[in-house]
């Protein structure tokens, strides 16, 4: 064998050896790519310089000098572009994060409803999915936004179902607890509760494997999550002071405001994407053989156990990859915010581009930001997918 192999490799000329040839092709392709990239970049730089257009990211340290409608961090027009862009970044993060969570919940619910044997529930879910899947997301956003500003009254005639809560075309404004150090400790307590919960679950699993005794992890966890912050609130002196919104001049002061732009964007994204997620969930559940359910029932598992131990682990394998892609869609679609005035990253970067004239840098930043969002979402989902994959024995 050995001799034949040696002989063959000597006989084949360089051009007819598939291994060598493929290496040659790859080097050629890489060179071509590098050349095109170099050509485009150097040419652009030369032309920008010839037309004396400013380049580089130095503008990030200049004063932004424009206001932004809503922000999670302190911001004013006197801050720099870098901070203005962070405001946009966080706004995109906020709407995507809340959007993804709500979408998964609503989508799962709809997907299960779509499989319901109840005729009415089944048809309602089907109708919803068909309707929201088929209308372009931009139209839906315009619809919800117009709905909010056309239907709701002005601040001076705001609807107030009970004291401290107002609904008007400036948004939903409600009272929140007055700032107090104890709330920081409560947040820490929640974090600690989550960690304990995680450890408890591991310990309970181990104990069950060893002794066969089940531990009520679910109820203990709920008790922990609610109990720990409550105890720390009591220890901190149980403050009850509220920041209540009051109408002053043009608008409400105090409290927390959910703007119509944010609400319209969130609602539009969630309702649209949930329709797709529902179909993904339905496909996942249907992919589990009916015999599995029957077998589980035959060995006497309760319905909750049947879902958690038999159906979900198998369905999730099918659900997770397309679900990831829907999450990415939601994040990317959030850039449609510019159309309805929510200051997301694209909107803020657009203003920065226009004031500084540095379109190439601005668009590059936008691309990098969306790449970061998408890559971290898929990294997390891939990790989860691996964890959920059935371990073959």
């Amino acid at each position, binding site marked *: 064998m050995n001799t034949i192999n040696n002989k063959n490799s000597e006989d084949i000329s360089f051009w007819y050896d598939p291994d060598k040839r493929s290496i040659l092709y790859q080097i050629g392709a890489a060179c071509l790519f590098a050349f095109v990239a170099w050509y485009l970049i150097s040419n*652009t730089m*030369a032309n920008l310089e010839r037309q004396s257009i400013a380049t580089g990211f130095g503008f990030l340290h200049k004063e932004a000098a424009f206001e932004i409608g809503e922000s999670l961090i302190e911001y004013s027009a006197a801050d720099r572009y870098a901070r203005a862009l962070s405001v946009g970044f966080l706004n995109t993060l906020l709407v995507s994060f809340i959007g993804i969570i709500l979408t998964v919940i609503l989508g799962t619910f709809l997907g299960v409803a779509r499989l319901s044997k109840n005729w009415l529930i089944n048809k309602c879910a089907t109708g919803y999915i068909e309707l929201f899947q088929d209308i372009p997301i931009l139209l839906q956003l315009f619809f919800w936004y117009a709905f909010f*500003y056309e239907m709701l009254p*002005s601040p001076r005639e705001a609807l107030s179902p009970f004291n401290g809560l107002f609904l008007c075309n400036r948004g939903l404004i409600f009272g929140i607890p007055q700032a107090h150090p104890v709330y920081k400790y409560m947040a820490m307590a929640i974090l600690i509760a989550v960690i304990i919960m995680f450890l408890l679950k591991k310990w309970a699993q181990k104990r069950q494997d060893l002794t066969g005794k089940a531990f009520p992890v679910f109820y203990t966890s709920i008790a922990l999550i609610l109990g720990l912050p409550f105890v720390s609130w009591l220890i901190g002196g149980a403050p009850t002071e509220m920041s209540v919104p009051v109408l002053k001049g043009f608008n409400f002061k105090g409290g927390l405001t959910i703007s119509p732009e944010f609400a319209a964007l969130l609602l539009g994204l969630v309702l649209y994407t949930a329709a797709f997620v529902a179909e993904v969930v339905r496909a996942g559940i249907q992919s589990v053989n009916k015999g599995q359910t029957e077998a589980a029932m035959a060995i006497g598992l309760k319905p909750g156990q049947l879902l958690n131990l038999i159906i979900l682990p198998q369905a999730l394998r099918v659900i997770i990859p397309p679900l990831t892609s829907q999450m990415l869609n939601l994040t990317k679609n959030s850039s449609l915010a510019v159309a309805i005035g929510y200051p997301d990253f*694209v909107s803020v970067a657009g203003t920065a581009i226009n004031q500084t004239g540095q379109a190439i840098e601005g668009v590059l930043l936008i691309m990098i930001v969306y790449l970061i969002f998408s890559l971290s979402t898929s990294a997390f989902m891939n990790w989860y997918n691996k964890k959920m994959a059935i371990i073959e024995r």
Partner: protein
Amino acid sequence: MKVLKVLAVCITVLAMSTLTMAGTLEDVRAKGWIQAGVNGSLFGFGKADDKGVWRGLDVDSARAVSVAVFGSPDKLKFTPLTAKTRFTALQSGEIDVLFRNCTQTLSRDTALGLDFAVVNYYDGQGFLIPKKLGVKSAKELDGATVCVLPGTTTEMNVADYFRTNGMKMNPVVIEDTAELAKAFFAGRCDCLTSDASQLAGTRAVAPNPDDYMILPDIISKEPLAPAVRHGDNQWKDIVNYSVLAMINAEELGITSKNVDEMLKSKNPKIQRFLGVTKGNGKALGLDEKFAYNIIKMVGNYGEIFERNVGVNTQLGIERGLNALWTDGGLMYSPPFK
């Protein structure tokens, strides 16, 4: 959606970067028309009417350039541009000249690689507000929600104004002019801010124009001027003197109606201006009759002002700063000699 547009323009920049750019005048003569960037949706400045004919002060100024170069007001193609895409379109060579109610500023003149020709409209930023709010001055706007058009100097001006006066504002920034106006008329914002001329146009299309008023405060200087690419001096001169010819004609009392009689005038200034005495055309690389043609086919500045935005139009704007210097305005042309 807009990202895609900006991206597309960027790709165009890259594609265009391979072309070596000759002077714009030769390019324009070779292809046989001028590609002019205009607003596209601003009534009175740059908008196509219901028959598809482009009308407006900026459009007529662009026609003057077309007459100067080709002797005809129709050798033009219009590209409607948003406030965001206009400069990139000019930088990339997609358009030859920008007539889009565009404010001349230092950074645009330098870092953006543009050159501005003479101002064809002196504007200033103001506030449009529903009368029922009972506000009489912009100083009373503390805490107001303000609808702003993005991608203009307006965003910065209004932030500056509120900061200087120690007031707070809450901006709502919507990209599309029509969508923004709809939100404002529905009461999403307490006031709408933009250049006063634009506010007049927006008010004219309100469901009930009498319910709204423009506050007397003008918070910025907005000299609106045509722009060309930096470094093409001959092309800039042509754009410059095409607009100036209309201003000069008004000062000399020449209109589209009497321009033929004026050819017989004994006044040496008029003779030089209309090309009876030769020299001006050659200096610019144009026909000696370019100024005569502009006045004959487009009109003088007063005529295009009254036709597009004047008191007898829906906009009803007074001459104000845009009157001739002899009438207390700022319109002033250097001598044509």
